[in-house]
């Protein structure tokens, strides 16, 4: 199954910056980026290996495709690429509803939804949400988000940022929020493919207001996988992301994915390394609670 992350948000929220940041920091993960139009995605010329009307090949095995007027077809074509990409990132158009796209993606063979990330320009998002034309669109984008990136925090004061954060808890009730400047969000927070034990210590650049913490846990005993996954996604723990491999019974391995409140459990290869990696906020990271969740989930 090909994991897909949907990146939504209105014009000017920084979607393109985030996507470019991901491409520049792909670090061996073969990304396939889907954008509405190439023209808005300035990829450094030295990264481009080849380009035709619908696809750009990028150094390191990444590709970028434009989907024009049929996103579904583009996704179906992408699933057939050989070699297959590791992860698909879909940059939704500024007025698209990421939740609706996610529902459609869920019907496509070969894809599994990794998460819905909605970017916002903290300086303008509240004003946009009261705009007579696009206000309801902004709210409908936020309501389905798993992660909301509060971007451009350098443009407002801390007090203003607190106001936006408070407002956001109301508008994006399912989401964890994370601050960033210039769209520089750690790939491991945005995409599960960057989050694994064998990638070593995670580099987590983020805005000062969001000092992040990543920690790995060893789980060798058999666990109630769904109980564990649901617990990791609970608001009480407030984790941004978690990913791991655990055994519900000896000899059967499952993958757990968590982004904000969204969690999933899928079959995994028996070779996948047992254990869990988590990302949360330094200020609220509760190692004890995670450890007790793990022991409560043990069978």
């Amino acid at each position, binding site marked *: 199954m090909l994991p897909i992350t949907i990146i939504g948000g209105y014009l000017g929220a920084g979607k393109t910056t985030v996507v470019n940041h991901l491409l520049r920091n792909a670090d061996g993960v073969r990304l396939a980026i889907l954008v509405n*139009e190439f023209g808005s995605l300035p990829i450094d010329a030295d990264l481009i290996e080849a380009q035709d009307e619908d696809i750009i090949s990028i150094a390191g095995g990444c590709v970028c495709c434009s989907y024009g007027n049929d996103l579904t077809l583009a996704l179906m074509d992408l699933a057939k690429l050989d070699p297959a990409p590791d992860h698909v990132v879909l940059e939704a158009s500024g007025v698209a509803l990421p939740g609706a796209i996610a529902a459609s993606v869920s019907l496509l063979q070969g894809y599994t939804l990794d998460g819905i990330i909605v970017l916002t320009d903290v300086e303008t998002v509240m004003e946009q949400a009261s705009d007579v034309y696009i206000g309801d669109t902004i709210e409908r984008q936020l309501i389905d988000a798993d992660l909301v990136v509060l971007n451009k925090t350098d443009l407002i004061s801390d007090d203003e940022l607190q106001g936006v954060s408070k407002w956001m808890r109301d508008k994006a009730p399912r989401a964890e929020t994370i601050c960033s400047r210039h769209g520089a969000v750690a790939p491991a927070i945005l995409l599960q493919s960057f989050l694994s034990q064998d990638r070593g210590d995670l580099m987590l650049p983020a805005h000062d207001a969001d000092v992040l913490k990543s920690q790995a846990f060893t789980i060798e005993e058999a666990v109630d996988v769904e109980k564990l996954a649901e617990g990791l996604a609970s608001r009480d723990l407030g984790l941004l992301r978690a990913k791991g491999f655990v055994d519900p019974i000896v000899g059967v391995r499952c993958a757990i994915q968590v982004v904000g409140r969204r969690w999933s459990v899928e079959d995994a290869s028996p070779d996948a390394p047992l254990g869990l990696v988590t990302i949360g906020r330094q200020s609220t990271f509760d190692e004890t609670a995670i450890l007790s969740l793990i022991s409560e989930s043990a069978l």
Partner: protein
Amino acid sequence: MITIYSAKKIITMNPARPVVSHVAVRGGRIVGAGSLEELKRWGDHNLDDRFADKVLMPGLVEGHAHTMEGTLWRHVYCGFFDRMDPDGKMWGGAKTKDAVLDRLKQADAAMADVDAPLPGWQLDPIYFDNERVSRADLDKVSTTRPIGVLHASGHIMNVNSKALELAGLLKHGINHPGVPLGSDGFPTGELKGPDIMTPVGIHVGFDRDMLACDERGLRDFGKLCVRAGVTTVTDLAARLKDEAADMMIKVTAEPNYPARVVPLRFFQGLTPQELIDHAASLKKKSTDRLRLGMIKIVADGSIQGFSARMRFPGYFNGAPNGLWYVPPEQLLETYELALKRGLHVHTHTNGDEATQLAIEMMEKALIKHPTPDHRYTLQHCQLADAAQFRRMAKLGMCVNLFANHHFYWGDEHYNLTVGPERAERMNACRTALANGLPMAIHSDAPITPLGPMFTAWCAVNRITASGRVQGEYEKISVDDALYAITLGAAYTLKLDGEVGSIEAGKHADFAVLEDDPTEIGGDKLKDVRVWGTVQAGRIFEAAALSA
């Protein structure tokens, strides 16, 4: 050599000599329209009396259609209303769900390969009490081949179990607003919205790009034009990649291609700057019979699909507001760049909020780039009110109203989507004209059949499918309706100097009619029989078109 045609009557649409007896043609252009005595003075000529018992009108202009109708006719016609195919065969309407299934069974029986897909089109269950065509119904036609039937609205498709199976959707646990589930927990086979129609549609025989038209489809579309008296027609949303544009140039240049085609470059998938650059490069490739370089933007969805953007008080059934297909900033940027570059833009707006946005962005763009005679046109613009029409007129805009929609879905709008008051002012032709707005009316073929005489009848009578007059006040006269399907539509394409009336200097484009639309009576306008057309002096008899 000049050919002078006589006719029982020639309706010129030129107010200075509205009716004449003869028209003289040389090299595909009109030398003059008048009496034989007047035209003889041009010198050597042949007098051609073949139209002596016909009525000639300017070749009709369809300002909003899609050439894909030519391609759809290779699929099984499942519509409720009688409709003629490109080869002149009249397909009776399928009046019940069983009639639809019988028609599909006949098509199934005629196919040798039991696994081949069977696509149908133009289903509209609202005419049989909204009884849905389920997966189980279509399974009675075949369980071995995938079957899919596209609704007339273009927004919904019904498929059988085999089609769901091929698309990986014959399973439990589906959670999608566009995929209703039956009591057994499996999808019913109804698929709502393009995102979900596409992945199943390709298994049932629909083309990957549903907007696209292939070579044969474009030729078949030409035949439909002849049968409807149309000599100039738009293809209102085309991607026009190189190979598609080249194909259209080639096919329309064939000696017997009977129509002038005006394809508009669809905006999606390009930044405004890329769109403008592509349209400008296409414009240079234009030929007489393929007019390239115009642009189509879609601002919102459809009213019956509840995806149109509505102002207060919103949808009658309380559905949430619809969807934007373009951000306001992008609409504004496209208008600005296109005005600066001298390119012509048409914008689809259905809901009145989308219309309001287009008007406001247009005003901003015009203040920045004042442009005389831009004729930017709002297409459909179905819910515009008088204030919006007034403002559009002041801004130099045009409108192309969806008169046919009123007949086919007027009852649905009255009862469900917008309620009585606004249903009565939908496609408000009279208010548009009263406020000085240049106006066309359209079919949006294949959504409704290509046929400007029928479209004119709709605007004159405002009768819905159930037989009610809906919006008495917005009726227009026969003369106004005939103007809208000739010069009115030509004006929105900036072709009114070339076509749309029969007068010296214009292209020799005529609709050749058996009946006189100005005498038959407004209530019978749709019954005007079309013999064929003359396009740039070339004669096309509908009955003689080769299959």
